[in-house]
Structure formats: C-alpha cells, structure tokens
C-alpha cells in the first residue's frame, strides 16, 4: 500500500514538474505548426534551444529579465522567418528537411568550442548564472509550502515559483490556442493544412498564413525553452533531435489539432516513462535490467507506443478521426 501511494505521489509530482510544462508549451507550438496548419516542423527543439540561449546569454550579459525574454522570442522569430522564406512556398516535405537540419546546425554551433565564452560550448551554461533575476520576480514569501503531498521551497531552484509561471503560461496559451482554433484565422489555416491551392483560389495569402503559424509556434517553443532551462541548465546536447521527437510523441499521443491534446500528451509522456522506469527498477532484478537499462527501455517503449498510436489511433486520445491531420 505504501509503495503504491509513494509511486502515485512521485508520478503526480512528475506530471506537474516544470519540465512537463516546458514540453507542453513546446507541444502547443508544434500543434499550431502541425495540428492546425499542417507544417511538418522536425526541429522544434531548436526553437527551445534558441529561446534558452537567447535568455541565458542576455542575462549573463547584464540585460534585465524582460529584455532577456524579448531577445529569446526575437531570436526564435528570426529563425522561423529564415527557415520559412525558402521552404514555405514549396511542398511540406521540404520544411521537414530544412527544420531538422536547421535544428542540428543550431545545436552544433552552440556546442562548438569556438563559442565557449558565449554559449559554454558542450558544457552549456550553468543555471545559477541566469536564474536569479527570474526568482527575484517571485511574490511568494521565502520558505517551503506543502500542498497535499507536493512539498517544494517557494522560491528555490525547482520550487513553486517556476511551477506557477510554467503552468500559468501553459494555461494562457491553451486559451489562446482555443480562441485561435474557433476563429476565422483557425479556419483558414486548417484549410491550408488540407489543400493550399483551394485556399489560394479563394483569395487568401497562403504563404503569409503559414509564416504566421511558423513564427507563433516557434515563439511558443522559445518560451518552453526558457521554462525548460530555468530549473536546470542550458545543455545543447539535451535539446537535440530526440527532444523534437519527444515533443512529437507528446502531441500525437494527446491528439493533434485539439485544444488539450498537447498538454495531456506531455503529462502522459513523462508520467508513463517514470512509471515504466520505477516499475522496472523495483521489480526486475539488476541482473536482467539495471537502472540505466530501464531508462533506455522506457525510451524503447515510447517508440513502440508511437508506432502503435499511429497505426491504431492516429487521431490521438482526444482527436476527432474525421478531422485527422494526416492521411493514413
């Protein structure tokens, strides 16, 4: 009994962790790209990484907190525009190729030893060098608060303040996504997802709509990146291709083109992985599978789950099959 309670408490804590909120934000951004507009962005992690770098480097160079966030957003917007200009006039596949290589370029440049003074090279930037201005904004008193079994320090490195801001942003942008989806703007981009030429023949500037979606989703990715690195550190190698695929898994698991799909998907993604890891660690003897292997095994299961999902429930948990975003 105690074991189950302890497991449940650690699973719920994982569900509400800042990292989950960061993934949810990035998945909402990807939902605007793929779910609404049909843009196959295979480099969402680059937007997170650019957001993280933009924020952290601005702070370490003495910019105030607000400016640092603006710099992070501006960089991600510029990146989106640069990726979009050559590819958005072409068929969707080209965007996928360009974003995946664009993301790798950003990561490789970030970890290059030539830039060690700025980006910290492959070691990244430690959290303590950019975290203070964010924690200084907290209106919470110092100390530790316990609600149910959630016990965190109010303003600590990984405490209540970052959780409140992270999930507050998730709630805000879920609302924005909801408003966009039922608006005429949402109608136009959903139509673009299906047939660009039809939309063009009705007098809409398809290129401009795709660019708007790419920029908006990318900016959300940058915000997610800031939330992702605030409780930890900027690690370029932790924000590579695999992160992009995890965001995709979260989105498809929850349901692309739905309002709560990205959030639900992100939560389930982390909770299920922790669940597999814990169960495997506690019940499978070390001679068969040790903790490190259990971690990797959980990733294997993520891949299997993604395949099964695409085959048997391509609309995700919350999606509407009639409105499926990709053809199967």
């Amino acid at each position: 009994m105690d074991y189950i309670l302890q497991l449940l408490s650690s699973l719920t804590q994982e569900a509400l962790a800042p990292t989950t909120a960061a993934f949810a934000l990035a998945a909402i951004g990807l939902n605007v790209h793929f779910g609404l507009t049909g843009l196959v962005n295979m480099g969402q992690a680059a937007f997170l990484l650019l957001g993280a770098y933009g924020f952290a480097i601005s702070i370490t160079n003495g910019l105030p907190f607000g400016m640092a966030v603006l710099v992070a957003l501006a960089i991600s917007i510029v990146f989106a525009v640069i990726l979009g200009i050559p590819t958005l006039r072409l068929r969707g596949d080209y965007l996928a190729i360009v974003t995946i290589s664009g993301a790798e370029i950003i990561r490789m440049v970030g970890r290059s030893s030539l830039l060690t003074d700025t980006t910290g090279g492959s070691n990244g930037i430690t959290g303590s060098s950019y975290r203070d201005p964010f924690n200084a904004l907290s209106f919470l008193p110092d100390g530790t608060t316990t609600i149910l079994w959630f016990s965190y320090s109010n303003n600590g490195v990984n405490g209540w303040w970052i959780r409140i801001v992270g999930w507050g942003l998730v709630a805000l942008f879920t609302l924005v996504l909801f408003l966009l989806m039922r608006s005429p703007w949402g109608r136009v981009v959903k139509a673009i997802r299906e047939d660009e030429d039809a939309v063009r023949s009705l007098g809409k500037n398809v290129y401009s709509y795709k660019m708007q979606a790419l920029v908006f989703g990318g900016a959300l990715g940058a915000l997610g990146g800031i939330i992702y690195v605030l409780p930890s550190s900027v690690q370029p190698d932790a924000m590579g291709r695999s992160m992009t695929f995890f965001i995709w898994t979260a989105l498809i698991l929850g349901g692309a083109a739905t309002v709560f799909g990205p959030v639900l998907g992100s939560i389930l993604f982390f909770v299920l992985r922790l669940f597999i890891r814990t169960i495997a660690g506690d019940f499978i003897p070390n001679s068969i599978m040790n903790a490190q292997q259990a971690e990797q095994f959980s990733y294997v299961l993520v891949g299997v789950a993604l395949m099964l999902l695409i085959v048997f429930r391509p609309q995700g948990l919350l999606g509407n099959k009639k409105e499926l975003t990709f053809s199967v």
Partner: protein
Amino acid sequence: MSEPTTTPGVPTALTAVQHAPGSPKPDAILTVDNITRRFGGMTAVDVGHLEVQRGAITALIGPNGAGKTTFFNLLTGFDKPSSGKDARWQFNGKTLGNTGAAKVARAGMVRTFQLTKALSRLTVMQNMLLGAKDQPGENFFAALISPVWRKREQEITAKAEDLLDRFKLLEKKDDYAGSLSGGQRKLLEMARALMSDPTMIMLDEPMAGVNPALTQSLLGHIQSLRDDGMTVLFVEHDMHMVRHISDWVVVMAEGKVVAEGPAATVMDDQAVIDAYLGAHHDTDLGDDSLLNEETYEELADEVAEEDAADTADEGKATR
C-alpha cells in the same frame, strides 16, 4: 426573361462581333495577349489574342489536350507563362500578368477546379465561410478577440445559408465535406466561389459527375448569375450544355484558339471539325479505290518534299 437567356441565340451585344479567333468584343472584361506555356519541348498554350465579353457566358471547348485547363491555370495565376514579359492580360482594367493566384482571386476572378478541391475535413459551412471576403477575424491578432469578427461572421453565415439553399446543400451544412458525393462537391465548390461576389467566375468542367436533373438546375443558376451581371467562363466537354447556355464559344486546339462564335454556328467551322475529328475525317484512308493516278502523284510529291526537307535538316545538323 429576355430573349438571349432562354435560347441559345446570340445576345445583342455580340451580334456584330466577327466570328474569328481573337476578334475584338464591344465590352471586354478580360483581354489576353501573347500568352504561351511550354512544358519542355511541348507547347501547351499559345494564345496570341483573346477577349472575353463582360456579362456573357463564354464556353471554352476543345479536344483533350487542347490546353484548356493550362490556359485556365495561367489566367488565374496558378501557373506562370513561358512568354514572360511579353505575356499581358488585363482583367476589369487591372493588369494581371505575373500575379499570384490569391491576388487574382481578390481582384474578382474566382475559379473552380476540374478535380474538385472541396476541403473534406472541414464542414460544408466552414468551406462556405472560407470563401467570404473581408472577414477581419482572418487576421491573427483580431482572431483572438471575437467581438471584432462576430458580426461579420453572422452576415456571411446568413449569406452562405442562402447560397447553400440555392444549391440544395443546406441540410448538409454541418456535415464534413468529405461525406458529400462527387457531384455535391462540385456544387459546394461553385457555391463557395460565389461567396466572394466575384465579377468573373471561371468554372473548370462544372458538370462533370453531376446528375442530369441537377445539371438542369445548375444551368439555371449559371444563367441567373449572368443575368445578375456576372461574367462566366467555363470549360466543358458536354456539347449539349455548351449549346444550351453559352452566349459565345471559344474553341482551342493544340494550345491555340482556332475558332470563335456563337454555339449554333461555331461547330460548323472547318477548323473546329478538323480539331475534333482530324482533317481527313471524311476520307476512308483504308479504301484502295481512292488511290487513283492523281492521288499517287500527290503522295509522291509530298514524299519528295519531305525527303528534301529531311536532307536539308540533316545537312544543318552535321554542319
């Protein structure tokens, strides 16, 4: 109803127009000059000059591969002419050379497609609302504040219901367009194009796949559009329909406009018969009795000429 709407006769404005390719019209809404489109070595469209009369129904006919759809794509900005800057076309006083498809549509020339592009994962009503112009909610920031676009949304919804009713699709308005039959999709696409109140509507084979009873009522709709002052240009293979509603017929063959005229007489034009049936359609080429002395001589001359031409070509090539 006035005389020209019910009979396949020629409307008064077009009676004086010469029955020749590229003839000038008294009130042309669309004027096309030097528009060519090549795909590799094949010239799909090569139109020197064409005018389309305002407020009339013009049919564009021609055998398969005549370049009708390519010509349509060029006019509506979905394709770019190979003739570059020489290609010029004017629509309603505006120059439309090298203009994107969306801008052409905003200028008031809206098209439909031969293979329908009904958006099957949107509902019928959403398809219709997409066709409307001036919806402020299509701006990203305005979209977030619903009071900005609510009123306009109600206006265009009412208009869409009205149009759907006319096209017998009203009871389907909340169904996904993917659940409609092929003919209904054609209707939806036409209704959607009308949502923007175009000055000219371009229909690419509007009747293909529509059942005969519906065709009749659609023909009525197209004629009433014309009576409301809209210009209609359509591509069609069904000659019965062409005879029935078109005021003027333009015939294309091998990328060129070969004949123009009213439906009743244009089919008798020698160029049209040649285009559809081949220049030797009334000669039985397998009949040996036709091969008299005279024909032998003619054929021999032709062969000699071709040989001479070939050697000349070869000479050029080897040099």
